[in-house]
């Protein structure tokens, strides 16, 4: 059984595009990255599977059940952390978390305190007195206290300092190792790279690529830096070279293709140094968004 199945899920807000025929599966037990720039439709897809908005056409199943029809039952097993967190300002943190825990059938008290402890959350303060980062921590605790089978994260790390981010990732990895599926939407690629096993890339409402994070990173692209005294960039204008920048002393470019062809060109010139790197996801990403 898949944790999430999108079936040609489409959402228009009136005439405005939300997502168009999104169609892929998230396997049970994996950490799945969902990446794209702001406005690509990441939140739209997430809000649909949570039943906050309704599809224009198509559908989505969570653990094999339609996300609209069985919304309340499905949400019993979902933990959701939105990108912007808003809670009842007048409430104390502990009251909000208890309120949140009260919606689930099982007793969540123990896990509530555990998580609050890990996140170093002050339970006695009022929500309105919390900084943005602290509100975010409340969000993390309320989203995970019922040990959900599916964790949905919508750009979760904004507002968290690096230390807290690491703690957060540790918790997520831990939940994942206990069997939870994680659906992780982000535009920060480094964090996706760190955690996820597979990714879907969304652009202007459409899924443009669905891939293993390893394949995506390889994808035969190499990032190449050549240094020398008098480099001739025109010699490198062969098929597969892109994003050429630099001058006669340094050349930066990406190459995808037969590496022998490139090595022949390089060896035909006098160079001082050469650097061949794996491109970061960020750089691959830029490529898809050109």
């Amino acid at each position, binding site marked *: 059984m898949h944790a999430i199945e999108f079936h040609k899920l489409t959402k228009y807000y009136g005439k405005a595009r939300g997502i168009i025929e999104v169609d892929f599966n998230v396997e049970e037990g994996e950490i799945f990255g969902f990446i794209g720039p702001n406005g690509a439709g990441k939140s739209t897809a997430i809000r649909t599977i949570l039943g906050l908005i309704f599809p224009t056409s198509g559908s989505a199943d969570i653990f094999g059940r339609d996300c609209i029809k069985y919304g309340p039952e499905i*949400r019993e097993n979902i933990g*959701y952390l939105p990108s912007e967190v808003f*809670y009842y300002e007048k409430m104390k943190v502990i009251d909000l978390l208890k*309120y949140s825990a009260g919606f689930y059938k099982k007793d969540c008290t123990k896990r509530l305190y555990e998580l609050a402890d890990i996140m170093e959350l002050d339970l006695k303060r009022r929500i309105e007195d919390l900084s943005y980062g602290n509100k975010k921590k409340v969000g993390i605790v309320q989203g995970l206290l019922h040990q959900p089978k599916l964790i949905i994260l919508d750009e979760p790390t904004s507002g968290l300092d690096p230390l807290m981010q690491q703690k957060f990732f540790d918790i997520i990895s831990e939940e994942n190792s206990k069997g939870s599926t994680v659906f992780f939407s982000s535009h920060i690629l480094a964090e996706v790279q760190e955690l996820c096993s597979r990714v879907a890339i969304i652009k202007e409402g459409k899924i443009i690529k669905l891939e293993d994070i390893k394949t995506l990173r390889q994808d035969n692209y190499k990032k190449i830096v050549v240094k020398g005294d008098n480099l001739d960039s025109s010699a490198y204008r062969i098929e597969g070279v892109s994003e050429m920048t630099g001058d006669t002393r340094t050349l930066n470019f990406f190459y995808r293709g037969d590496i022998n062809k490139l090595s022949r060109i390089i060896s035909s010139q006098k160079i001082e140094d050469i650097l061949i790197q794996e491109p970061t996801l960020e750089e691959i990403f830029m490529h898809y968004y050109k």
Partner: protein
Amino acid sequence: MNIFIYEMKTYQNSIIIWSLSISALMLLFMAIYPTFAEDAALMESILSNFPEEFARAFGMGGNLSLTSVPGYFKFIFIYIQLAISIQSSNYGFHFLSVDERELTADFIMSKPVSRRKLVISKFSAAFSGLIITNTITTAAGLISIELFRNGNSYDAGNILVLMSSTFFFQLFFLSAGMLVSVSVKKIRSVLAYSMGLAFGMYIISALKEALGMKALGYISPFYHFEPGYMIEFGKYNMERASISFAFIIVSIVVSWNLYMKRDIHSL
């Protein structure tokens, strides 16, 4: 139950303040009554000098003398209704729109709660708040009449019929507010809407009285539940009240259907 309890807590202060204010208003109004009643003849002659349209618009017209207990109570009850209509519309415009306005909808709606349950809990909480207010103010009304009636007689049954109408009167504004709040994209300021609705309806009814335009009155619950009729005859004017009943049912049904399909937007 979880949501209902939370909602009731958020209404707590509001219920206390409204109940006390309305009760105080009634007490204050009734405290002036003895002065009215003592010099009945003089009062009558002053009132008869008012232009009839003016007197009617301010609830001083009709068959009942302002110097009698029912006549006086009818007169003040319009202002009680005005206060009640503001409170009821406040709750009506508020209870389904607040989570979207304050962006807490993402929190509550990603919990394992159906929209049905959410609406029912929130509606029940708002309406319970109104019923509590109603109960307290009814008691305060009866007490203030007893305190200041100055030996004049009145029919307690008729007063109770009048007071009981508040229940529907509140429902009218609650459901109207709810209907508007799920029909528009976002309610930015509840107060602007509720004041508009409450005073708007009051003015329509006052205009109807002043101008004698009966058709105009049918729009307004201030006319449907006009105190004079109920206090004089001890029953609702069903011809008018049923318009309110129908409106309440229609707005609840329509709001329900709209909310079940409503998209909840984030920022």
